[in-house]
């Protein structure tokens, strides 16, 4: 995977670069998804940071919680009926004590689904094609285009430089 990119010091210039790339993507025939944006920290409130997507997928967590609750209920009731052993003059699976276990598994379900949705959503763990540049960790924002066509490489560089980058770099090959 070959990436042509440039480093911008602050979010505003990065935003301009991204807008420029968006504008130029049709005629330089590369797709919007090929635009690569990497930053060392989240930049809230900028378009390029997809922060406008307001959909907060709590749905998955609630769904996971429901699964957890189901598992809790099945676990506590079916197991007692499988081998009924009476204790303390209580019913086999009293509602109150089973409720505690159902509650715990509900929360466990929620937590695990939160974790899973993160990993799926952020397409982790993927070890291929990790773009590395030490400067990201110094507050710079990397904007670039992945695998531009030979023909449009030059135009992409101009576009990046036009937005205010000092230089255009190239990243190629598989990360170590």
């Amino acid at each position: 995977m070959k990436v042509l990119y440039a480093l911008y010091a602050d979010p505003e210039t990065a935003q301009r670069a991204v807008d420029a790339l968006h504008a130029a993507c049709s005629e330089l025939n590369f797709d919007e998804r090929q635009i690569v944006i990497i930053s060392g920290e989240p930049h809230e409130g900028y378009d390029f940071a997809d922060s406008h997507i307001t959909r907060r997928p709590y749905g998955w967590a609630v769904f996971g919680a429901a699964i957890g609750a189901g598992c809790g209920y099945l676990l506590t009731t079916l197991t007692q009926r499988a081998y009924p052993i009476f204790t303390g003059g209580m019913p086999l699976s009293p509602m109150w004590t089973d409720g505690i276990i159902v509650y715990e598994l509900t929360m466990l379900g929620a937590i695990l689904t939160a974790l899973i949705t993160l990993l799926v959503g952020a397409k982790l763990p993927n070890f291929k094609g990790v773009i590395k540049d030490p400067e990201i960790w110094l507050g710079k924002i990397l904007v670039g285009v992945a695998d531009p066509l030979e023909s449009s490489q030059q135009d992409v560089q101009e576009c990046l430089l036009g937005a205010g980058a000092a230089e255009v770099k190239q990243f190629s090959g598989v990360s170590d």
Partner: protein
Amino acid sequence: MAHKWGLVVDLDRCTGCEACVVACHAENNVPTVGKDQAAIGRAMQWIRVERSWEGDFPNPKVRFQPVLCQQCDAAPCEAVCPTYASYHTEEGLNGQAYNRCIGTRFCANACPYTVRSFNFFNPSWQKPLNLQLNPDVSVRSVGIMEKCTFCVQRIKSAEIQAEAEKRDLKDGELTTACAQSCASKALVFGDLNDPNSEVSRLASSNRAAKLMGELGTKPNVTYLDRGAWQDAKNS
């Protein structure tokens, strides 16, 4: 109708001779723990004779009270056991499955009567004392909680015998080791579901009371209070 084993302890007959304590040790392989362990409060007794003083010289009063597992119907020790070592059997006993016990000791803390003994070390019977061990009862190892089982091995063998002879268990045919050895007949064992058994008759006497019955544990051991001399008529 399933049996519901119960015991009546007549405090007016109990003389505090502790024959029941030794009979229980002999019948159920309860170990002796030696002087040092006994000194830190680890002597193991499934039935103990509690003694309490009242008043002072020259007329002190003493009260003996044998205390053993009350086989409660709503036993606080059963619900808290995580592995069903402590549970309620079909015959109204508070069962203790030694193999399931992992030694959390929660049951002993939950029991208001403190009648559960714990094997802090592997019990040892120096040869040939081990020849005395009763083969009908298992020998518990370190880390296991044990308690009075109403001599469940005697109950089981009597039931198997009765079933072999295709008849019902007669009242008095089956008794626990402590009730068998009690000279003054203070301990009477029997089936509470059988209305005309001796234990049912005694349990309905007007002297009957439960040890700490107000805790709601519904014990199956009934204590007959010790009447004063004058009211001999309403025994």
